[in-house]
């Protein structure tokens, strides 16, 4: 019975896409209602399944699958896997998704593409649920690609704007580079272990360890490529900031809370393939995650576009999660993923509310004093900022702490120090944003006339704010612990104990984390609490310029790497094709060319009779050749 419910959860959003494109394309309100209904229904159903799962005391509900494409040893199913990992993600995708759908009703109200917007949003929900619920590699890859296309459609929603059209192309192509590795990884695992199903693979891994161990590092890193693309890890991180060209609710849903987390989710899902003795994949993953966290946090310090600051912050937090997976801590990674979904969605929606209030102004230095103009937005944004910075007892504190503790436990001292430093930077850039946008004086006409957003937009903010506050004590960590370490003893059960658990479990991590927050906050207060312009560029000089210009990675890719590799190859191939293959081989030497010219003139009589004659002659020739033998 719960399998049927699960199928319904998956296909409700697809039905909504079909209904909107086929029937209600020209009726914006009806389209939005269908889409909102679908996602809320999916959320309610997910809750029902989840409650049943919690009560069932099993590690996963029975799988349901139908064959999709079976040829020989290649067996691809469409199958659902329901365990703590996937159910947790389903709740995030549909829950946060519901709030963002509702918010969009207000935010996108006057857009001519209202129906198209909601159809794409539903398509995204469908694809994301597919990734989350997939019980095998190929189905995950299929939905992986579909998520890519929905992201493409939504980033390029305002496709007439050249920047949006470029951004969606860039996002899709960068993701495709990651997918290239992902697919090769899948092929490699399939060739060695002979299955695509996660559960099957886990079972087969033990007897086939001898075959798998030699390729484990390569396969692990190739699979990680997929995560690198989707979760925007260095060096494929460049697409995410540009993706902010899409409507802000899209940035909140796809490019902060859910889709970009898919990479981390996937790594946790196939963690058993990465965590193989003798494989160095995890080590590389940890360092790439750590590096991305640091790099993005540094860039975020000197951005001036409110959405770009948040985008780099997302990159940085994703780096944390990837780092955590790399340090053999999928539980901590999923924990942070969950709380991050709450507060980052909250921050993006808050930013959307600010942008809405400012009549589509995104430069923070043209804002100011919005605290009084938009109080609900201010308070909720503040909660999000505190949670993201990791202030006790908000949710971000707990999840970040569990990552730092994981680093200490596994003796990754360098990554631990890096993590603490990034926590400092996080607090610094977030409070820079808060001080400039909500405090001080109004820096422009628009900021003076700003207004609070309608209820349909502020209520989702309030709900997300509550979730960001209590996310740390809801037992999320226990849920994922059940998945990854079913034998570990239960965490502190009492509410008070839970509240203080980090301080007794790993005091160094907890106190250093809090220390970093205080340092960051103090620095931000000193520099930005009353400033009219950014004092950092003067103080830091070239470093600030490099940060503002994203350490020139985009330029490096666009002007050096792409032109000198693939584009150069393409030019070369094109030249060969034009001058050698069609030039030399086809037109032949000059004599033949001449002959061709003459023959051409003879042939091109334009008279149909001639052609008809040739037709008959051709047929006769064939007959002759055959009969001759």
């Amino acid at each position, binding site marked *: 019975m719960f399998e049927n419910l699960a199928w319904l959860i998956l296909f409700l959003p697809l039905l909504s896409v079909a209904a909107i494109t086929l029937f209600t394309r020209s009726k914006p309100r009806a389209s939005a209602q269908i889409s909102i209904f679908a996602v809320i229904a999916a959320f309610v159903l997910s809750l029902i399944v989840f409650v049943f799962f919690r009560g069932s005391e099993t590690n996963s509900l029975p799988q349901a699958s139908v064959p*999709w*494409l*079976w*040829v*020989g*040893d*290649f*067996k*691809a199913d469409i199958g659902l896997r329901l365990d703590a990992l996937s159910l947790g993600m389903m709740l995030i995708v549909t829950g946060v998704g519901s709030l963002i759908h509702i918010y969009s009703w207000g935010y996108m109200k006057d857009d001519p593409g209202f129906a198209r917007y909601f159809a794409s949003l539903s398509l995204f929900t469908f694809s994301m649920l597919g990734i989350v619920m997939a019980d095998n590699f*190929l189905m995950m*890859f*299929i939905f992986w*690609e*579909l998520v890519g*296309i929905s992201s493409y459609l939504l980033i390029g929603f305002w*496709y*007439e*704007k*050249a920047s949006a*059209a*470029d951004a969606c*192309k860039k996002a*899709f*192509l960068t993701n*495709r580079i990651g*997918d*290239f590795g992902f*697919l*090769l990884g899948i*092929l490699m695992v*399939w*060739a060695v272990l*002979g*299955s695509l*199903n996660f559960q099957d693979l886990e*079972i*087969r891994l033990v007897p086939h360890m001898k075959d798998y161990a030699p390729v484990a590092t390569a396969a692990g890193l190739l699979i990680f490529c997929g995560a690198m693309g989707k979760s925007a890890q260095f060096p494929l991180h460049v697409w995410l900031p540009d993706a902010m060209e899409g409507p802000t609710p899209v940035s909140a849903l796809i490019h902060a809370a859910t889709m970009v987390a898919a990479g981390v989710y996937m790594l946790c899902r196939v963690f058993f393939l990465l965590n193989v003795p003798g494989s160095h994949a995890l080590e590389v993953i940890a360092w790439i995650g750590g590096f991305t966290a640091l790099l993005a946090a540094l860039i975020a310090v000197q951005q001036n576009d409110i959405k770009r600051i948040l985008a780099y912050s997302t990159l940085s937090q994703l780096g944390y999660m990837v780092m955590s997976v790399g340090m053999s801590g999928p539980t901590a990674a999923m924990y942070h993923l969950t709380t991050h979904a709450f507060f980052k969605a909250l921050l993006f929606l808050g930013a959307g509310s600010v942008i809405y209030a400012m009549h589509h102004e995104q430069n923070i230095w043209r804002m100011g004093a919005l605290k009084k103009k938009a109080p609900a937005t201010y308070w909720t944004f503040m909660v999000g900022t505190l949670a993201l910075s990791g202030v006790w007892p908000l949710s971000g504190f707990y999840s970040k702490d569990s990552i730092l503790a994981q680093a200490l436990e596994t003796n990754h001292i360098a990554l631990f120090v890096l993590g603490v430093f990034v926590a400092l930077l996080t607090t610094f850039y977030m409070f820079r944003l808060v001080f400039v946008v909500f405090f001080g004086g109004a820096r422009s006409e628009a900021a003076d006339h700003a207004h609070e957003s309608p209820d349909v937009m502020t209520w989702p903010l309030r709900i997300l704010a509550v979730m960001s506050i209590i996310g740390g004590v809801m037992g999320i960590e226990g849920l994922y612990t059940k998945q990854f370490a079913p034998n570990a003893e239960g965490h502190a059960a009492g509410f008070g104990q839970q509240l203080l658990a980090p301080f007794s479990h790993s005091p160094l991590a907890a106190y250093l984390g809090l220390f970093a927050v205080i340092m960051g906050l103090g620095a931000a207060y000193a520099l930005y609490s009353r400033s009219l312009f950014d004092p950092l560029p003067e103080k830091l000089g070239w470093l600030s310029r490099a940060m503002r210009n994203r350490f020139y990675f985009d330029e490096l890719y666009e002007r050096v790497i792409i032109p000198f590799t*693939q584009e150069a*190859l*393409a030019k*070369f*191939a*094109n030249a060969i*094709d034009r001058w050698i*293959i069609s030039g030399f081989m*086809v037109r032949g030497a000059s004599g033949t060319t001449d002959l*061709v010219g003459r*023959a*051409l003139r003879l*042939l*091109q009589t*334009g008279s*149909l009779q001639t*052609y008809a004659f040739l*037709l008959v002659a*051709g*047929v006769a020739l*064939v007959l002759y*050749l055959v009969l001759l*033998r």
Partner: protein
Amino acid sequence: MSILTNIILCPLVAALLLCLVPRNYRLIMRIVGMVATFISMVMAIVMFWRYDSAPMGPSGSFKFEEMHKWVDALGISYHVGVDGLNVGLILMGAIVAFAAACACWEIKEREKEFYILLLVMTGGILAAFASLDIFCFYFAHELALVPTFIMIGVWGRGENKNYATFQITLYLSIGALVSLIGLIALYVQSGVQSFDIVTLTEQLKQHPLSARDQNFIFPLLLFGFGILVSLWPFHTWAPLGYGSAPTATAMLHAGVLKKFGLYGLIRIALPLLPQATHAWLNVIAWLALGNIFYCGLVAMRQKNFNWLIGYSSVAHMGFVFLGIASLNLIGITGAVLVMIAHGFLAALSFGLSGYLYNTTGTLEMDKLGGLLRRMPFVGTALIMAMFAGCGLPGFANFAGEITIFFGAWKSFPLVTGIAVWGALVIGAVYMLRAIRNMLHGPLPEKWQAVAESTWPLRKLPYLILLVSLLVFGFFPQLLTDKIKPSAQKIVTMATGASETVAQNDEPPVVKAKHK
């Protein structure tokens, strides 16, 4: 008469009928053209639907079989029948033919001749795929090929028209001729005095040709058929020819007729010349990369949209060659799947580009832009086609390509790796560039007034093709369940392995034992 014969005869009879229609009855000609292809399409769908339950014909491996002796002395007969390899191709051919017949609005002069040629071409293509007699197989292909040349020469477009006509004629005639030599050699050396594929197969299974003969015939078939499929480096005729061809011709040729060479390779060369096939597998795999990788790169540099999709269709043929080179059940099944999927896709792309050309008068991509706002239907359909072309799941092409990758991975990991790059990255680069340049971005002043037709009939061909791509993309088993047994037969004969693993379709629990 078997339903198969009716499918073939319908367009040919209509062509004869059209000869009697006076020149100025334009509407009648359109109607006859559309109705004839429509009937043929409906019958093909019925045949496809009934395929599973239909009884085997007298030969034991084909359904809807029909056979009449023709030239007994030479062993030529009219012998048609379908198995898993061609039932999908005939369905695809019939659907594309109807779509092409619907998409001939641009033809404004000498319509009578155009429609006659179109119908002859359609009949020829379908007959070629249905034939189980090598003579008829070849003859039917010629019957379809020659109208192609004439149509490009007379109704083609652009300044390059004459040169294109000449090159495509020269190239394809040479290809056909080379393969003919191979086929005749096969006929002579087999020693059974029969063109019948079933007889030949039986004979060569018992008494295979000598290695010398096989090594002589196989390259003739490979390169002869290869030229017809635009195998690298014999591909330059394709973008040039399609760039100048009238819409319907490009749809039919790129979509359906081009698959003839591939079909010939799989149906004739692989099972009848197993020893030589083995020797050539490596070469085929690397040549396939010439198509996928090299031609994909060239497509990136194209400025004209028609050339871009021309090169992309050349690139897609590489996947089929890669599937053939893998020579296992997975690879061959995937190859047939891609042939069918690409037929729909190529027809859709060329159909839409023709629509665009007739609306704007140019396909130079830097002159276009922002057209999605003015042409929502055509633009959306084109975006879907482009994404199908870069292997997005949900379209049939993805199912085919992924199957081929899985089939080829174990024998050619390096080649497959590069092919995956070609499919996922290079394909996406040029497809997205095309969308960005033509449909996205600001709308230039010049195209402010452009509009698409609101008449549903104009949308019909594209809708049919899109629906086909989606149906087989969502439910590829509709095709693969039919293809698999026939592909298995081909593989068994080509690898000579008598004890090949039987269809292992048991549930996953059981399969855990044998690996």
